[in-house]
């Protein structure tokens, strides 16, 4: 089964997102910040990453920038999932290496739509 790393400092958001990606036939893995997510990726690259922007220790943009420099780090499809909705911020996330972008609040339809646009399903 393909894996999806869900990175968010909110346990509730991680649970909700995990349930949604599970329904899309991904095995969810959870991380609470960018640094923890990076160490998960170094152990085994996931197929997809759903990542929040604002988190303690390491934020989503820094995590994605570093992920893309890792061996095999260009492979995962990275989808931001954040409350940041300004066009400049979205462009910044894409520049860091994100493939798609979800503006919170989200639902299962939106994640499915974005995964589909990113070629995951």
């Amino acid at each position, binding site marked *: 089964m393909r894996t999806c790393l869900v990175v968010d400092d909110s346990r509730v958001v991680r649970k909700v997102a995990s349930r949604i990606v599970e329904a899309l036939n991904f095995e969810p893995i959870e991380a609470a910040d960018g640094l923890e997510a990076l160490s998960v990726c170094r152990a085994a690259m996931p197929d997809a990453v759903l990542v929040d922007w604002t988190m303690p220790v390491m934020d989503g943009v820094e995590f994605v920038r570093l992920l893309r420099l890792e061996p095999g780090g260009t492979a995962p499809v990275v989808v931001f999932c954040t409350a940041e*909705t*300004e*066009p400049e911020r*979205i*462009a910044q996330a*894409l520049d860091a290496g994100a493939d*798609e*972008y*979800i*503006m919170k*609040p*989200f*639902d299962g*339809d*939106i994640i499915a*739509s*974005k995964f*589909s*646009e990113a070629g995951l399903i």
Partner: protein
Amino acid sequence: MTREDLDLLADIARERAGLNLTGAAASFAESRLATVARREGAPSVAALVDRLRAGREPALIAQVVEALADGDTAFFRDRALFERLRTEVIPALAERRPGGSIRIWSAGCSTGQEAYSLAMLAAEMGPLAGRATVSVVASDLNERALQKAKSGLYSHFEVQRGLPIRTLLAHFEKADDHWRISPALRQSVRWGRVNLMDDLSRFGPFDIILCRNVLGALHAAAAQQVLGGLESALCPDGWLVTGAAETVTAPAAFTGQDGLLQRNAAYERDAA
């Protein structure tokens, strides 16, 4: 809702718009009419239906029919279809219409996502063979849906269904907690209120007509009437697009699959 109320609504929906208000469609009727009841100051859907039964308010009847005909839509709905339009259908038409215009009609456009998707597709295709251009016309029966379409203003939820993020950034600007399509694209689409049960031969001719997820909501006879009308508004070598999952008995002159049907001019010559 009582059986009698639902029967009355079904009669009105069939007479005014050919709509088939049975099965799943009936379950949507009450929630859609609740919105109309609130707007019209009716204390309940039953009270609203009583006013319809009295038959003295044509404007109210029109509003109810509009609400019942309200369609679900999304940007680039059925991406495979838009890919075929981009790679096959529009380039082929451009070669046959050097210097001319490829006219596309989004028939039953609801809140405009399909029409704007076509406009974005055309903008992103760049110059076509023979300098052909693409023009998009969009129509719906529902005046409120048309007003929203014309505004080009969509919520976070709407722009995240079917619209890749780079396309959103390229063609929309942020407007408070909504997104507004660029003025150039908004002005590039022409909008009109059209009942597809009316005579459609006065429109067109169009090169491509999209009428998706409309025919399936109609009574069989009404669907055939609409199909005939759309055919009369289509170029001899034009394309008709229905919903990929819709069961539609297309006129014999059409060939194709997955809802993308080409009118075959040779067939009609032979038949004549």
